[in-house]
């Protein structure tokens, strides 16, 4: 890797109470990469993702050691709200606020101090376009967001994240509740976003990881077993455990 990694973790250990969920994770993610993270349930994928923008700290028993660097800077030096503005997350199930489509997307910019109506409208339109949702909702921005289909809601969540202007987007099994066509649309959106964002995709679906990601990491029981270019990882896995998982012998 030539360029400086956008995200780098050094000896990252994560705990919930006394239970260690992640062990010594060392990862580097360069700009504009889509990194896939695969692994069975309870392998620590989601915890890793939520460690990056400190959402894990919403649990009172959570603690971590080691370092997470964003553009070479320790994230502990960045305030929670600025960090989460820079590192957005898309949750597993589409989670929309019980307000209109417009207000869902405008919420982020508003809390970051954008009050000008025209600026807001432009930001919302831009975000919805980038999330491939604009054409489907442009005539009904005032409608409740909950009336959208699951796939549309998930793209609305992506638009909502884009609207605050992040640098990194995390996806926590974003398509686990979606049908194949909606899944394809979300994946399309991810490909289009590659030019401007660094993306990390946690997925239970190894096929999705192989379709979307450039590099892929395999987590197992809190350890990073293997990481490499997606094609190589799926064709010539270096570790026997990776091989077992991707060929479906367990997990």
């Amino acid at each position, binding site marked *: 890797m030539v360029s400086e990694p956008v995200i780098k973790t050094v000896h990252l250990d994560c705990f919930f109470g006394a239970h260690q969920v992640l062990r010594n994770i060392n990862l580097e993610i360069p700009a504009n990469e889509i990194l896939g993270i695969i692994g069975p349930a309870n392998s620590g994928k989601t915890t890793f993702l939520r460690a990056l*923008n400190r*959402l894990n700290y*919403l649990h*009172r028993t959570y603690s971590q050691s080691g370092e997470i660097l964003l553009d070479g800077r320790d994230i502990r030096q960045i305030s*929670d*709200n*600025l*960090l*989460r*503005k820079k590192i*957005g*997350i898309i*949750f597993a199930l589409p*989670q*929309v*606020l*019980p*307000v*209109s489509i417009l207000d869902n997307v405008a*919420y*982020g910019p*508003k*809390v*970051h101090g954008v009050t000008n109506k025209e600026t807001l409208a432009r930001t919302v339109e831009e975000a919805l376009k980038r999330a491939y949702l604009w054409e489907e909702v442009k005539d009904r921005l005032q*409608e*409740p*967001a*909950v009336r959208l289909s699951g796939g549309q809601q998930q793209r609305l969540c992506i638009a*909502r*994240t884009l609207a*605050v202007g992040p640098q990194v987007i995390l996806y926590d099994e974003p398509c686990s509740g979606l049908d194949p066509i909606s899944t394809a649309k979300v994946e399309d959106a991810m490909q289009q976003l590659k030019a401007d964002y660094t993306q990390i995709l946690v997925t239970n679906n190894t096929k999705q990881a192989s379709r979307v990601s450039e590099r892929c990491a395999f987590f197992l029981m809190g350890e990073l077993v293997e990481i490499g270019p997606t094609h190589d990882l799926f064709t010539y896995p270096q570790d026997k455990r990776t091989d077992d998982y991707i060929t479906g012998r367990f997990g």
Partner: protein
Amino acid sequence: MNGAKLRQQIAFSVLGAITLLIVVPIILVILYIIINGAGSITWQFLTQAPRNGMKAGGIFPAIVGTILLVVGTMLFALPLGVLSAIYLVEYARDDLFTRMIKLSVVNLSGIPSIVYGLFGFTAFVLLLHFGTSLLAGSLTLGIMSLPVIITASKEALESVPLTYREISLSLGATKWQTIRYCVLPYAIPGILTGTVLSLSRAAGETAPILFTVAAFYLPRLPHSAFDQVMALPYHLYVIATQVPNIPLSISFATALVLIALVFLMNLVSIILRAHYRKKRLW
């Protein structure tokens, strides 16, 4: 008809009968009061001060007194109660101290109102030298209302899905922004219900105002927050038991006005609730 269906029918009938059992007495009480009191309600009765040792005239000062007491109680108890609930739900760590506070709140709502009356008398009337006054009475009723308002607000806040908070925080909102824009708006209907419930109770209480604010006979309006007032429940008690030879119909009319006042408060809260529910887009 098979067995399961029959059992279901029986269960429904029993539940229906029990509901009726609760509703019917309430309707009878209200009807009885209306039948006996409605005849005495005239424009003079609502707008004039009592005369001739309360045997004639109206109950205007008592109506105003009760309204002032309810407003005073709300001004004191609503912000304090909602803010306490926000602290308990959103900020307090789940430790021994917090649990003790929560337990105290629950227990406080079980204390008899006369005890609040005595407390208000010693604390506000004597210790703080507020005298027997609107202020002392409002504070006493406020303290009595607090546990219900806190409990209702707490439950309303807890019923707002955690995901709303998570969405807001994940977008970089601060904790307070999250509470202000993603939690409170959806808790307001529940908070309102609890508040009106406790204010209705405050409007009808006699014991807490007995030593702290209520005037036996004061046929004028209060001049300041340090003045005494007449209040409907105490006035009702007085004319029904303390002054001889007052026609019973006047007591019933007074009771009817008190009930109507409480009903009006509930109506306002229902309208407000509907307004806030509409904001939540489903």
